[in-house]
């Protein structure tokens, strides 16, 4: 029995060892979940990355080496993600890791990458305190602090809104921090916040808040929370005869907002990091290639971010003329106006990305339609 077990263990070991890769390739680790609760972020990211690697290799690879993705499923589990990061680095000897699309796991993996001087480029983390974890930690996502100021400009200058009502869900961290960003962006603008109401996630009755808001006669309601409360809030507004629209972040971006809100959310607006309508030439090319591969399915935000992550790494490697993370890290940090498929990306001196444009969507006839592409200016 013991003999059998030891033979079995030996076989398993050998199988693990045989994964050792061939020389002459530059390896990129995919960190993300392919199964479990957060697989809906990991699977599209990987799909985008694979398309990018194909394109890179078709163009001759980077610095004479072919690019290869090493994938491993972390199930959204933190200890497992740490194991995988260590495996990528010490077994597979990856030059960079792309992922994780969630902020929490990115924060687990970041110290390991930083310690081993391997570039980590998260194609999805939007929470605070990510790139602060080290010199080798990057991301290519649209941050609320980047998106909100140009949107406020757009609403004040182009749409002509002067009186804003703000509604915050104060037991929702996303909502609390988004409201903070919004209030900061409103400072010094020729517009004012006329009402500042609080709700809670899970509330059903918003009559008191809407009554207060209605008395202040706002032009528009900014709601920083999620879609369920958003839909109910607007229903109450219409019930009381308050005919202004709502706008908010991608917490509102869900088909549920429309199915729950119905007529009441008609005209409401949300902003997102990617929308496949009215694309730039780069994006159009990607959308067509993606559709050809996936039976006409349109790519989403995570596919484009995964694609851009690989392309940014390839660009940095080419500029540094080296596939050594210690060298191309500096080039990655200097990327300016990178024409990606999810938008134009600039890495700021503090390593946080600026991404342009912001896609402002409006609900029309029961569907999200592109209203405007708002450009983000890089202020130096």
């Amino acid at each position, binding site marked *: 029995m013991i003999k059998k077990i030891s033979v079995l263990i030996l076989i*398993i070991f050998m*199988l*693990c060892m045989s*994964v050792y890769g061939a020389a002459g390739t530059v390896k990129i680790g995919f960190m993300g979940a*392919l*199964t479990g609760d957060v697989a809906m972020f990991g699977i599209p990211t990987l799909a985008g990355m694979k398309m990018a690697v194909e394109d890179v290799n078709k163009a001759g690879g980077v610095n004479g080496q072919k690019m290869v993705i090493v994938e*491993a*499923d972390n*199930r959204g589990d*933190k*200890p*497992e993600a*740490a*194991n995988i990061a*260590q*495996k990528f*680095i*010490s*077994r597979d000897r990856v030059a960079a890791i792309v992922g994780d699309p969630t902020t*929490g796991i990115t*924060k*687990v993996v970041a*110290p390991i990458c930083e310690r*081993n001087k391997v570039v980590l480029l998260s194609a999805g983390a939007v*929470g*605070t*305190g990510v790139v602060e*974890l080290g010199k080798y930690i990057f991301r290519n996502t649209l941050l609320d602090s980047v998106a909100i100021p140009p949107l406020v400009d757009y609403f004040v200058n182009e749409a002509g809104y002067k009186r804003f009502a703000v509604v915050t869900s104060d*037991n929702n*961290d996303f909502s609390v921090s988004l409201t903070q960003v919004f209030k900061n962006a409103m400072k010094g603008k020729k517009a004012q916040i006329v009402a500042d109401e609080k709700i809670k996630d899970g509330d059903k009755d918003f009559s008191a808040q809407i009554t207060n808001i209605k008395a202040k006669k706002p032009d528009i309601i900014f709601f920083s929370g999620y879609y369920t409360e958003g839909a109910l809030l607007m229903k109450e507004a219409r019930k009381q005869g308050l005919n202004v629209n709502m706008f908010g972040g991608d917490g509102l971006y869900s088909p549920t907002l429309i199915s729950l809100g119905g007529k009441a959310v008609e005209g409401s607006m949300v902003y997102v990091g990617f929308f496949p309508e009215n694309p730039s030439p780069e994006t159009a090319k990607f959308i067509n290639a993606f559709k050809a591969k996936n039976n006409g399915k349109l790519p989403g935000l995570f596919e484009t971010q995964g694609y851009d992550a690989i392309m940014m790494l390839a660009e940095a490697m080419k500029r540094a003329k080296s596939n050594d993370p210690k060298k191309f890290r500096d080039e990655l940090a200097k990327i300016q106006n990178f024409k990606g498929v999810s938008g134009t990306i600039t890495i700021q001196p503090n390593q946080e990305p600026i991404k342009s444009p912001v896609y402002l969507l409006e609900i029309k006839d029961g569907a999200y339609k592109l209203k405007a592409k708002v450009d983000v200016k890089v202020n130096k």
Partner: protein
Amino acid sequence: MIGEYLENLVNLVDAYYLQIFVNIGIAIILALGLNLVTGVTGQLSLGHAAFMSIGAFTGGILTIKLGMPFSVNLISSGLMAAFFGVLIGFPILRLSGDYLAIATLGFAEILKVILLNLDITNRALGLSVPLPNTPIPLPIYVWLTVLLVIAAMILIQNSRFGRALRAIREDEIAAETMGINTTLYKIQAFAIGAFTAGLGGCLYAHFIAYINPSDFGFSKSVDILNMVVLGGLGSIPGSVLGASLLTAAPEFLRFMERYRMLVYGALLVFLMIFRPNGLLGGVSVRQLVCKALGIKPRPRQSLSTDSNMEGRRVK
């Protein structure tokens, strides 16, 4: 000096195996704590991860805010968890069986919600924990703690205290008749279990470097319970084996890619069918070792040698 030497020593080990090895160590600490409560004393607890989270956040906050020496920090985390163990042990350990399980589950959920709403735990954003304030590398710290916990558990199980706990598991009324203060003993066992969970949590927080209250939910508690049941309830070598296997298995099954968790689940089902008492349930490791070495096992005096009593299922 010593720190540098140890650091070099640790660096000799392959980093990937070391990572898995440390995860195994932390799992062993957690499993042994639960084994004392559920395996030895027979009190089914579904809230072990809650004590782990208390240890993790105490340890994390002490390192972040005060930069305390890690050994002090580790013990404070354990004590904090033990304090909570006693606090909730008083009301809920009067329950038994399913009722106790649900009460511990409720406690774990309440704690998670509280931690999600405290400013000091950074609410839902979680805490990034810096490296601990100690010259000794963390992997060595973890395994030293593992050895200490194993030694302590062996001592406890073979003491008068351990026998009393076992008596409570077998028949609470009979135990009470024999003069055992069952509530007191149960709370003590609970506190020790919570203490080790606190140690495990503190080590986990510093090793993983990022903690979030939602990491310590029901599924984490069930994971730990899995290790104890798979290894064999009440068996210390069993808990060690169960924790090692269940932590290492997802890594060793990685070559199966997406079928991995399927196989993992199937393995659990088969193990429970063919070894319902757990891998080492009802097995005396001491006798096995003696047999392998060809020595005639020396009969022990105490009741704890009765291998039939190891690995009983929870009532």
